[in-house]
């Protein structure tokens, strides 16, 4: 059978080296496309973050030309349960969060563990713009221009050991500033945990974001630094990251803990595999309205199939949802 457990995949298949190579090929293609860019993007708002604009040419996976969701919607309609369960709660309550100073603890199977200050991290990378589709598991989606840098840039600096097969991410736990964490009725066991397989983390599409729409990330969108994995459901793109742990075993994510049948570790966008409680075949692209609900078909891997399908070759995606 084609069914292959992730554990059965030879570890050579997911060593960073193999991924570096694949990534280089990918980057060369993208660089060629970027070279053909006609004009640099113009930004309406002056950016506090310097960044390299990317090519807006159709077909560039880094930069979808689809209509962007207005900033006012992307910053006021959020799932960030640390601040409450209503979509409008994060925008209302996230201002309580202090994001400066900020650092990330790097732990586990890595040669350079330690506490890294955000300023130092930002000095070591180039910020660029990426326009990605974001598909929430709840069947709505947005198109968001992020500012950030490939996660692989950081991973390479920290030098994971050969045992590092997965990465675990942790969101800040600070109930004094995050009112949702004080709720006694939450289904989530804080802090919020997410994870990626090493090859997913090294993939050039996988972004660490520090801004959007040409400005710094609003708190409710995961300031000061968050993950963006565009081919996976939004809950994988963990916000306000304080800890990154390199592990040999697959991390147990928060949503797997809450409802393992509904939210798997992979959580790849897949119109053919329904959430047990609702269909994933369609999505409402926001902003939607009652007269034109903007209901569109969901694409395999959220439209990034060409770039990421290879990561899951031979895996039964119905089983590893």
């Amino acid at each position, binding site marked *: 059978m084609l069914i292959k457990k992730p554990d059965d995949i030879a570890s050579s298949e997911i060593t960073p080296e193999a991924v570096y190579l694949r990534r280089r090929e990918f980057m060369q293609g993208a660089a060629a496309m970027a070279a053909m860019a006609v004009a640099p993007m113009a930004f309406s708002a002056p950016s506090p973050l310097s960044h390299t604009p990317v090519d807006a040419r159709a077909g560039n996976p880094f930069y979808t030309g689809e209509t962007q*969701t207005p900033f006012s919607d992307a910053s*006021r309609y959020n799932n960030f349960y640390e601040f409450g369960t209503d*979509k409008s709660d994060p925008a209302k309550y996230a201002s309580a969060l202090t994001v400066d100073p900020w650092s990330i603890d790097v732990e586990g199977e890595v040669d350079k563990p330690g506490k890294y200050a955000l300023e130092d991290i930002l000095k070591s990378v180039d910020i660029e713009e990426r326009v990605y589709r974001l598909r929430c598991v709840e069947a709505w989606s947005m198109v968001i221009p992020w500012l950030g840098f490939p996660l692989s840039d950081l991973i390479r600096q920290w030098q994971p050991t050969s045992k590092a097969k997965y990465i675990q991410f942790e969101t800040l736990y600070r109930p004094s500033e995050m009112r949702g964490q004080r709720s006694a*009725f939450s*289904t989530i066991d804080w802090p919020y945990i997410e994870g990626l397989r090493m090859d997913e983390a090294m993939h050039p599409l996988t972004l660490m974001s520090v801004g959007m729409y040409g400005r710094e990330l609003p708190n409710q969108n995961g300031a000061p630094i968050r993950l963006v994995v565009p081919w996976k459901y939004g809950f994988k793109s963990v916000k306000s990251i304080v800890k990154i742990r390199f592990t040999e075993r697959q991390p147990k994510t928060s949503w797997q803990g809450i409802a393992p049948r509904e939210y798997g570790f992979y959580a790849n966008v897949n119109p053919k595999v329904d959430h047990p*409680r609702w*269909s994933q075949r369609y999505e409402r692209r926001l902003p939607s309205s009652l007269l034109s*609900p903007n209901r569109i078909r969901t694409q395999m891997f959220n439209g990034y199939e060409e770039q990421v399908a290879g990561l899951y070759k031979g895996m039964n995606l119905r089983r590893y949802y």
Partner: protein
Amino acid sequence: MVDVTDRARQLRGKGWDKPLVFVLCLLPLAAVVYGAVLGGLGPDPVKALIVMTGDWAIRALLVVFSVSALRSWLGWSRLLRFRRMLGLFAGFYASLHLLVVATYLFAWDWTIVLEELSERPYIIAGFAAWLLLLPMVVTSNNYSIRRLGRRWRQLHRLIYPVMGLAWLHVVWQVRSSYLEALIYGLLIVVLALPRLRRFQFTR
């Protein structure tokens, strides 16, 4: 005009109270229409509308359901005068909710409807609740009461399974917080207590 029954006189007795309750029951609809027409439902109005109509459907059900409990605890039998209207409004908001879901989530596509109705327990529970509401809605008139006699009361005990199914419909949707489901569940159980006791006595 010609035949003024006791009941009708009683209804007219207070003149203003029924119209007042009627207008109060229309307020959620006004909020829904206001949000839908003038905006204010946010970037995902479909979802907002579904949640809003669903919330008012279950609240209206809870209000009708509380009438007889309030009567047995506090002796508020005057509330009985509003029960029919409250029940019809509960049916109305549940139907509006179903209409929004059918239009925007299912897009009136029968293959989707069949799939949802066969695969998703929370949809099955919601739909069953709505189906069981229908016979009560249809028989909420003097003619049916006279016609059905004893059986009318029996028929309207359907409110119990309706409350249970509506609760299941909400519980099975819980994602990140149990609070709402817990409140509804407690209310339903507490409001059912007096009648559960009565069932015991009659048996």
